[in-house]
């Protein structure tokens, strides 16, 4: 189980129709690789975010498969075209089965 997992995203409040915007996302997470051992020599079980998705009004914007080599607090910055007002939905999937979500509305300027 990962503690203190907090998703964060930054999306502009508004955009012109057809405009390309930049989205930033970060989730605080230890991303324990499963390769390390604790001070007693026992393996520390793998615990990572293994999948991240972003969708706009139900349409997929980006899908990312994360692997154990990705460092702690994974940060993604990507671009999206905004054809209409709507909602970005962000979802992170944890190895332990937890799903973290965040959503941001965007209006047309």
């Amino acid at each position: 189980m990962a503690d203190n997992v907090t998703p964060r995203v930054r999306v502009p409040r508004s955009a012109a129709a057809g405009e390309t915007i930049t989205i930033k996302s970060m989730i605080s997470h230890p991303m324990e690789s499963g390769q390390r051992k604790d001070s007693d020599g026992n393996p520390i079980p793998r615990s990572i975010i293994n999948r991240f998705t972003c969708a706009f009004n139900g349409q997929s914007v980006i899908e990312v498969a994360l692997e154990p080599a990705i460092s702690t607090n994974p940060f993604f910055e990507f671009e999206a075209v905004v054809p209409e007002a709507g909602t970005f939905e962000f979802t992170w999937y944890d190895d332990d089965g937890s799903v973290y979500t965040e959503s941001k509305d965007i209006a047309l300027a």
Partner: protein
Amino acid sequence: MTKALLKGAIYAAALGGFAQFAAADEDASLVINGELEIVTEAPAPAHLDGALRTIYSGWVFRSDETQTMQMDDFDNPGMIFVEEAMVAWNTPQGTEGKSCADCHGDAEDSMREVRAVYPKWNDDAGELRTLQMQINACRTEQMGADALKTDAGAMLSMEAYISAVGRGTIVNVAIDGPVQEIWEQGRDLYYERTGQLDLSCANCHEQNYGNLIRADHLSQGQINGFPTYRLKNAKLNGVQGRFKGCVRDTMAETYSPGSPEFVALELYVASRGNGLSVEGPSVRN
């Protein structure tokens, strides 16, 4: 390697006047979130007596990518820990059932000027206190809570929060009066060669800043940006933990974080940065 603060540029500036230096790295000004201007370069404080002409924040010595991470709080991973401390600030802890906020209110107001003047002499206790010692004094004396471990987890997060609300204020630690003797002890430690490599702090950070020590670009070792989020270990690092790392690298037996020696050294090194902005939590490699 192309950064202006490699030594060649400094010599060029010294020979050719200030203009070339400014032109060599004119992008190097730190503005956080597009509004908060940070002083990363200032005239050296008088007590350095010419040992340095100008003092520079460690930010100036880092790569463009690392510098950029500190220019936006969303990109700065250190702010994750600040957010944790914001929660802790408002959470009652200890037997008195008090939170930090019960006495100090909104940290944005009450803690604004704090980070810049620590380490600071405490008259009632008759001792010099680092910010971390003061936080623990509050916890044990006012809140009835356990002391937090020096330079670790929750303590660094709280120190980062108090630094973050003070970003932009100018470091101005007192070096005279009751702390003078401790300050002199810190100065002696700074110039004392230690370890099998026989290096003092000054050998690297005063005489060779801007040069490369193997692959590392030496800064002046200023601590205005602490606690620092280091990319190499992906967490906040405290001043005294960093001292320990440096002393270890000279292959010496180190003092421990929280020891009187490191408290004295923290005061002295902080005073070398009098004139720079509080910057923590900064991002370094």
